[in-house]
């Protein structure tokens, strides 16, 4: 209900009652004058009630500040009536940036009694693509009982809201890198630690857990002995993202930025949900450096950093790898996500070799930027792109590096969900 409806009757009453009053006074007809007088008193009463209707009404929003694309988001509004009158028909307008509609209109019909609070929840959907949006401001409005006057007040409650790209499980990643406990290969180091893998028996030392005493050995030696286990390696996943501005191509949902961010989000989320320590590194307009961490909260932070990334960097991906490779722990997985297939293959081979020599398992994902609509430079001819793809695939195969090539014509969700994604680049 806007001002238009309230104004129609009000303007009519001003005109009609004014006319009746003039007629009454001019013709000395008391009944007409009384009609005008009564009508204007009614307008005055309505005006006062509308003015007081919003006094001491307050509204505040409570919403979790992030969600995935297409998620339904519950937004909680807390409406306080601090006045001494009951509030009726209070309209609240909110502006939820990620929704398609500009504004969300809500009605609290009442009664909301004096000195009372009511929590109201509306649900809307994140219909817009990933990014950082704003939520707010809020607007409170109400009218007098006759709907003649409309009172409205803005509440400058504006907050950012992050919409994360929808993440799909990357099936191929399950086969890569370290695994959680109980899987023997590559997970443990033959050094005394806390894993379930058995290392040997040694003498008891003060502070050892009594539950680890190896009773048969203790009986044989005549002195307490304890079992030793190997070190459990923590699964560790590093994502190196190419944010070089030279690799921008395409627009909207079919752009290299979209593919890079969406693929990064899926990789990070999949690795985090299986329990890996995850770190993300990139050099865009600003440095993207998410330190290693585990858990959903950390993955959420990673997504938040990713959606703010811009393809405005000037550091090539292989320089980024060169810069960080010495800090990658043995047994970890490092995924190189490039915005182009046209990497220097010699340098790529060197980088892969260096990583493998440190016990790091590299994975290479190449986004074929020439399959997207060119923006500021011509696309490479198809045959040349095919030759480069073939050369890159051969290199990866020769070094035993899992890899994939993503193109604009592919359905990203289906492609990332392929179990054999990293087995044969195509």
């Amino acid at each position, binding site marked *: 209900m806007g001002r238009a409806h309230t104004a129609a*009757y009000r303007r009519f009453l001003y005109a009609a009652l004014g006319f009746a009053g003039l007629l009454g006074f001019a013709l000395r*007809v008391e009944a007409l004058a009384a*009609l005008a007088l009564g009508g204007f008193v*009614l307008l005055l009463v309505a005006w006062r009630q509308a003015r007081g209707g919003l006094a001491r009404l307050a509204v505040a929003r409570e919403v979790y500040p992030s969600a995935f694309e297409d998620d339904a988001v519950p937004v909680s509004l807390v409406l306080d009536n601090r006045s001494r009158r009951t509030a*009726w028909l209070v309209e609240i307008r909110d502006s939820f940036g990620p929704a398609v509609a500009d504004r969300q209109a809500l009605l609290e*019909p009442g009664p909301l009694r004096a000195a009372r*609070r*009511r929590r109201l929840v509306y649900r809307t959907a994140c219909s817009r693509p990933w990014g950082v949006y704003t939520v707010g401001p809020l607007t409170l409005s109400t009218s007098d009982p006759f*709907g003649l006057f409309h009172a409205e007040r803005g509440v400058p409650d504006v907050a950012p809201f992050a919409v994360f790209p929808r993440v799909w499980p990357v099936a191929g990643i399950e086969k890569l890198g370290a695994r959680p406990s109980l899987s023997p290969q590559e997970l443990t180091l033959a050094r005394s630690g806390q894993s379930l893998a058995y290392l040997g028996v040694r003498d008891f030392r003060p502070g050892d857990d009594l539950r680890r005493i190896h009773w048969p050995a203790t009986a044989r030696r005549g002195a307490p002995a304890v079992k030793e286990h190997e070190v459990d390696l923590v699964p560790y996943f590093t994502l190196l993202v190419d944010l070089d501005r030279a690799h921008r191509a395409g627009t909207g949902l079919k752009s290299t930025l979209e593919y890079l961010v969406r693929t990064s989000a899926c990789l990070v989320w999949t690795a985090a949900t299986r329990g890996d320590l995850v770190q993300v590194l990139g050099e865009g307009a600003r440095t993207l450096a998410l330190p290693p961490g585990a858990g959903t909260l950390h993955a959420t932070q990673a997504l938040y950093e990713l959606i703010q990334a811009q393809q405005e960097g000037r550091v090539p991906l292989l320089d980024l790898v060169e810069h960080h490779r010495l800090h990658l722990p043995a047994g970890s997985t490092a995924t190189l996500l490039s915005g182009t297939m046209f990497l220097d293959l010699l340098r790529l081979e060197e980088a892969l070799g260096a990583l493998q020599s440190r016990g790091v398992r590299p994975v290479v994902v190449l986004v074929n930027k020439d399959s997207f609509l060119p923006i500021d430079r011509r696309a490479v001819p198809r045959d040349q792109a095919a030759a480069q793809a073939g050369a890159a695939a051969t290199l990866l195969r020769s070094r035993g590096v899992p890899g994939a090539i993503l193109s604009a014509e592919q359905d990203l969700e289906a492609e990332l969900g392929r179990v054999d994604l990293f087995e044969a680049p195509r």
Partner: protein
Amino acid sequence: MSEATRRGDGLLPILAARSVALYALSLHAAAGALMAWTAGDAGMLALAAAVLALVLIIGESFGSSLDLGLEGTSRLRLRVTVAAAYASFVVLALTAAVGTGEARLLGQEALIFTVLQAAFLLLVDLGRTHLGPVANALVLVVLASLRGGVVAAVAVVGGLALLGFFLALDHAARVLQAYPPGRADLLGATLRRAAASLAPIVVGLTILFVLSPPAPLARVRFPAAAPGPRDEEVAAAYRRLVVFGLAGSGLIFVLVRLLRRDRGARSPLEEALSLEQGIEEALAEPPPLVRRDYHGRRGRIVRAYVQVLARARDVGFLWRPSQTPRDIAAHLPAPSGPLDALTELFVGARYGPDEPSEEQAVAAERAGQAVRAGLGRKTRV
């Protein structure tokens, strides 16, 4: 919003009650004008009650199908044309009636506007508002009030009261129509709120008319054979009118709920969402504002400073709560020597750990007097 989904919420009773209020307003205004300027016998009142009820039911139930062929601009053009023509007709009719002072002409106009009221009720759902029938009802009230006496008094008081109830119900209905159905049992509350606001006006007008009964338009020439209705006849006519009105209202309340086809439109940029309402919680009382009491010499200095601030406020100097005493002193248009001394003494007394001396208290009071004198008398602008 389809009718089926609306059935469960509290909108339909309000829509029906709005129709009843509109009917009551129309019937009351028409009956007042007819009783004032025509014979206004039982048959005519019954006929008016029946016709108005029938056209309103038809208008509310099937009126929305009338504008299906009209675009927004065409509808607006039609509305403006009809409004201009109607306003011209009203001015012409009232001018002619008042100018000639012919009771017969006024009677004919009462009949014409009663027929027009029926027409407006038939087209009640055509516009965005119900301005047509409301405007015509006011014209009928104006015609009735020209007659003076009990008829005019009842027409004015009843017309205003019914107009208020109609506006309140119309407002509630429009607000509820704009949102998805929900928990909203507002009929009783709407009527109570309207009644509370209207009661002083109705009581005031009634007292006014009892103390000073309204006189008729002086220049009206009544036929010698028709001296006008007596008060008993008017009372009997109103009793009949109440019976007819109640019957018509009951019929309208039932039929409008059954037959009404609802329609509501909202800007595509705005989505009206349903709410999940939590329980009402009591708000915590805000902590009481505790003012520290200052006693002794400390209190004398603080009081001297507060008196200066009160005088400053009286002469139009306003300060913000965020300003410190020294900020205030820098902007206060007062003698700087005593003001600075008082400010320093106040800061020491208000925030310092030590009890001020007697000399400091006396100095503060003297400085306060000097500053107040320097600020002058009350000249708030």
